[in-house]
């Protein structure tokens, strides 16, 4: 995506789940943090399962007009704490809050996805936000607590 396109993005993708990454050993607080989500994922179009799913890994990045969530590319895996940790086989988890209830997911890498396969699985908007020259990172999430 070029800079001009990035400048007019809404911050979130429609349908994304936003949450908080937890490094190894860290437990979620009793209530959701007061600060902005630090992680997000996008489920495949039509995905109904909530206990185990393959999804796009989204990262919040700065654009010319603010911030927006974009699919993480393979080139960016060393940039973020959770994606670097997962590369090093660390047990990172994603906590997703719904009111006061939290769903806790174990995360691991799934197969990366070629850019032109993003739209059929995740929608055109997701592909439009992804790097056109690098595979997108997919995660496999497993619900461990809800």
């Amino acid at each position: 995506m070029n800079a001009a396109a990035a400048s007019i993005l809404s911050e979130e993708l429609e349908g994304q789940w936003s949450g908080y990454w937890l490094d190894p050993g860290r437990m979620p607080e009793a209530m959701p943090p007061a600060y902005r989500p630090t992680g997000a994922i996008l489920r495949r179009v039509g995905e109904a399962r909530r206990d185990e799913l393959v999804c796009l890994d989204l990262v919040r990045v700065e654009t010319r007009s603010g911030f927006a969530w974009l699919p993480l590319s393979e080139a960016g895996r060393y940039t973020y704490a959770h994606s670097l940790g997962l590369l090093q086989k660390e047990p990172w988890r994603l906590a997703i809050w719904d009111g006061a209830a939290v769903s806790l997911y174990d995360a691991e890498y799934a197969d990366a996805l070629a850019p032109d396969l993003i739209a059929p699985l995740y929608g055109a908007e997701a592909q439009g936000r992804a790097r056109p020259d690098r595979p997108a990172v997919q995660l496999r999430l497993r619900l461990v607590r809800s």
Partner: protein
Amino acid sequence: MKTWREAFEATWLADKDAVAALDGWVRRTLAEHRDLGDDVHALESVAPWSVETLARSIGAFGDSQQWLWCVTAVALMQELIFCAEGGGLDPAGVATDSDLARVVEALRAIRNAVAHPAFQRSKGGNTAPMIRLIELLQIDDDPDVTELALRLPDAWSYLAERPTAMYALRNLNAAGRLFIERKRLLKFRP
């Protein structure tokens, strides 16, 4: 929690081949600015800092928990590598790769915050470096960094803590890897 040494050993800064490849590229690039590219002796003394010495310093400062010096060494390293092509104060050759551009921007924000400590108030369209860095720390996904970003507005001196050094090291590792790949200086082992 990962120790500093464990985190450091997993980066290109602990990879002799990667450090040597970048060190050589930086020396040659700097020498060419002064038409010294063919002088093998000049390559040895072309600049007061080198990638090899800074890589050692970053590791050692972290080992001794001198976090602010550690971050300062990361800031010097990013300038040495990413400003080498331009031969000045601005990075060159990174804008065309969005992932590389983002991490270099984070590293520049770190540099400005540690190297311009008297710059306290935004003026003339320039955001105070610490304010800028706090913005970037707030969107990080490391819980320790996010918690630091919550405390920093009240006391900028907290920048001298471990999470800043871990954040700086992670960004320098990501940037260096992408840069080495982009310049085809080395093929990283999977």
